[in-house]
C-alpha cells in the first residue's frame, strides 16, 4: 500500500551499475594525486615558505617543531618536488589504465557513450538544454551520458598534456643517460620535445603546465557542482556512484 504510493510519487526505482571497484579506486586515487599535485605544484611555482626556513629563521612556523632549523633537515623544496613526482607517477599510471578501460572495460567501456557519434552529440546537446530549462530530462541509460563522457574525455586530454609538459620539464635535468639507461631520457625527449616548439621553449612549457593546472581546477569545480546538482534535481543518487558504484534509475521525473 505504502510502496505503491511511493511508486506513484517517485516512479519505479531500479539500480544501475556505473563504476567497478577498479574504477572507484582509480577515481579516488586520481583525486588525491591531483590535489597533491596542485598543492605541491603551487609550491614549486611560488615557494611560499610556510614550512621552509626563511632568511630570518623566526618567521618559519615549523622551526623547532618538525625541524631543528638546520638546512639539511628542512629540504622543503625537495619534499615538494618528490611528492609532485610521486603524484605524477600515479597520474601517469591511472591515465594509461583509464585509456585501456575506456575501450576494453568489460562492464562500462567509455566508448559506448560515444557511438554512434552523431546521435550522441545530439543527446549531449539535449543534456545541456536540460541544464538550462530543467525540462526534458534525458533518460538515464545503461552507460554514462554522452555529455559527461565528452567532458571527462577533455579532462583526460588536459591530464595528458599535463603529463607531457611535466615530462619535458623532468627530462631537463638529465644529461643523456640515467640510472636505468639512456632509453629513458630518450623516450621522454622523443615523446615530449614537440611541446618546446608549441609553447615556446622550456619557460613556455612551464607556463603551459601552470595554466593547464587552472583548467583542471575549473574542471574540478564544474564536476563537483554538476554531480551535486544532478543528485538534487534528479533524485537518482548520482553522487553515490564513486562510493558504491551504483546509482538509481527512475522512470519518472519531476522535470518531465
Amino acid at each position: 500500500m505504502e510502496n505503491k504510493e511511493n511508486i506513484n510519487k517517485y516512479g519505479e526505482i531500479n539500480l544501475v551499475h556505473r563504476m567497478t571497484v577498479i574504477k572507484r579506486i582509480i577515481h579516488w586515487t586520481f583525486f588525491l594525486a591531483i590535489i597533491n599535485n596542485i598543492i605541491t605544484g603551487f609550491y614549486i611555482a611560488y615557494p611560499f615558505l610556510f614550512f621552509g626556513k626563511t632568511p630570518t629563521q623566526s618567521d618559519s612556523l615549523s622551526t623547532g617543531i618538525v625541524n631543528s632549523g638546520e638546512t639539511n633537515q628542512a629540504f622543503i623544496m625537495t619534499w615538494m618536488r618528490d611528492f609532485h613526482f610521486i603524484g605524477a607517477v600515479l597520474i601517469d599510471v591511472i591515465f594509461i589504465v583509464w585509456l585501456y578501460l575506456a575501450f576494453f572495460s568489460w562492464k562500462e567501456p567509455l566508448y559506448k557513450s560515444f557511438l554512434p557519434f552523431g546521435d550522441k552529440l545530439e543527446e549531449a546537446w539535449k543534456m545541456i538544454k536540460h541544464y538550462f530549462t530543467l525540462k526534458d530530462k534525458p533518460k538515464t541509460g545503461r552507460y554514462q551520458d554522452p555529455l559527461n563522457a565528452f567532458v571527462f574525455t577533455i579532462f583526460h586530454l588536459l591530464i595528458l598534456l599535463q603529463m607531457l609538459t611535466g615530462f619535458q620539464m623532468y627530462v631537463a635535468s638529465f644529461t643523456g643517460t640515467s640510472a636505468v639507461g639512456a632509453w629513458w631520457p630518450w623516450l621522454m625527449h622523443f615523446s615530449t620535445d614537440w611541446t618546446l616548439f608549441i609553447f615556446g621553449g622550456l619557460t613556455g612549457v612551464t607556463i603551459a603546465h601552470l595554466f593547464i593546472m587552472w583548467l583542471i581546477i575549473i574542471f574540478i569545480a564544474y564536476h563537483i557542482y554538476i554531480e551535486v546538482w544532478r543528485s538534487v534535481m534528479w533524485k537518482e543518487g548520482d553522487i553515490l556512484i564513486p562510493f558504491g558504484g551504483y546509482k538509481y534509475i527512475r522512470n519518472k521525473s519531476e522535470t518531465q
Partner: protein
Amino acid sequence: MDNDNHSCDNNCKEKKPAFKWDPLRFISKNPDEVLKKVDKRLDKLEKEYFKNTKEKENNLPNIFDIYGVSRRDFLKWSAFLTSTLMLPYIFKPRIARAANILTRTPFIWLDMADCMGNTEAFIRNANPTPAEIIINYVSVNYMESIMAPAGYQAEARRTETIKKDKGKYILVVEGAIPTGMDGKFLTIGAKGDTGIKIVKETAKNAGITIAIGNCAAYGGIPAASPNPTNAVGLSSVTNRSVINIPACPANPVNVVGTLVEYILTGKAPQLDNIGRPLWAYSGRLHDNCYRRGHFEAGEYVRHWGDAGAKKEYCLYMMGCKGPFTWNNCTTAEYNQDTSFPMRAGHGCIGCSEPVFWDRMTPFEKPNADAKIIIPGVEATADEFGVALLGAAGVGIAAHAIYTGIKKKNETKKSSSKKED
C-alpha cells in the same frame, strides 16, 4: 707525452667506457686510434704553419711574455681546458700544441648587427687568461675592431683570405643578420655590401664556421619581438653547418675550446640539437649551481640585498632562469675564470637559449610571473587562471540560483494546480 702510459692501466681494452657519450667517440671508437689520428693531424699542421722547431717552440712563450703569463700559468690553463673539454688528461700536451697552432691559423671575425660585446669580452681584459691572449694572437686576417687596414684595403684582406686559405680559415661571426629589405638594414665597408652577402660569401669557403654570442647563434636581441629588421641567426642564412656558441657574451673559454678541438680533430665537436658543443652546453645551470642546496632547502632571496642575499640563498624568486638554461658558466666561469651571475648575486637571464629576450623576461621575476601568449590576453597564467575560475564560479552560482528559483516557481504552480 709523458702521460701516455696512464691511459691503459688495467686491461682497458676489455673494459667498456662507463658513459655512452664521450667527446671524441665520433673520431673513432678505439682510444688509441683517436690519439694516432690527432697526433698525425697536429704534426701536419705544425709543419704547415711553423718554419722550424725553434719557431714552433718559441711562439707561445714570446706571446705570453708580453702579458706576463708564466709557463706554469699556461700549463695550468691547458689542464683546465682539457678537463673543460671533457677530455682525458693524456690530451693535455696535445691541447697545448693545438693552442700553439691556433695562433697561426688564418682567421676572419665578422661583426653583424650586434653590440660587439663578444669582441669586448675578449680584448678588454685587465688580466687576460691564455684563452683571451690566444684569441688576440690568432693570426687575424680580418676583424674590424682590431685590424690596421681600413676601407678597400680591409675588404681586400678578406677576399684574399677567402681565396688563399680556402677551406682552412676559421670564420667567427658575431651579431644577428638582418634579412628584411634584402638585408639593407645592415651594410658594411667601403662598398656598402649587405651583411647577409658578406656572411654568405665568407662562410662558403670557411674551414669551420662559428656563431659567437646569442645574436649570431639565434638572432638574440636584434631578433627580439617584433623584430623589425627580420634579423636571424647565422645558421638560417648559410647552408654550411654552424657551431653555435651562444651567451651574452660568449665565454672565451668555450670559443677557444671549440677552436682547439677543431685543430685537434679537423671537425666540429659533437653538437646538441640546437648546434651547441656538447662539452660546454650539456649541463643545466640549475643542476650545477652552488646555490642549489638553498633551492632545495626552500631558502630564497626575496628582495635585493636582504638577509638571504647576504647568505647567498637561491635566486629562484628573484627570477633566476638557471632552471631553463644550458651552459657551463658555473663550472668554466666568466671574467678570467672568476665568476658568473649567480655567484655575483644576480639570477641567470638565460642568455644562451634561443629567443631569450622574449622567453626569459621578465628577468628579475619568477618564470610563473611572465605574461602568457594568448592573443588578446595581457595577464600571467595565474591572473588569467584565477579570472577564468572566477568566471566559472560566477556561472555556477548563477546556475544554482536560477535552478532554485525556477524549481520553486514550478512547485508553486503544481501545488496551486492541485488545490484547484
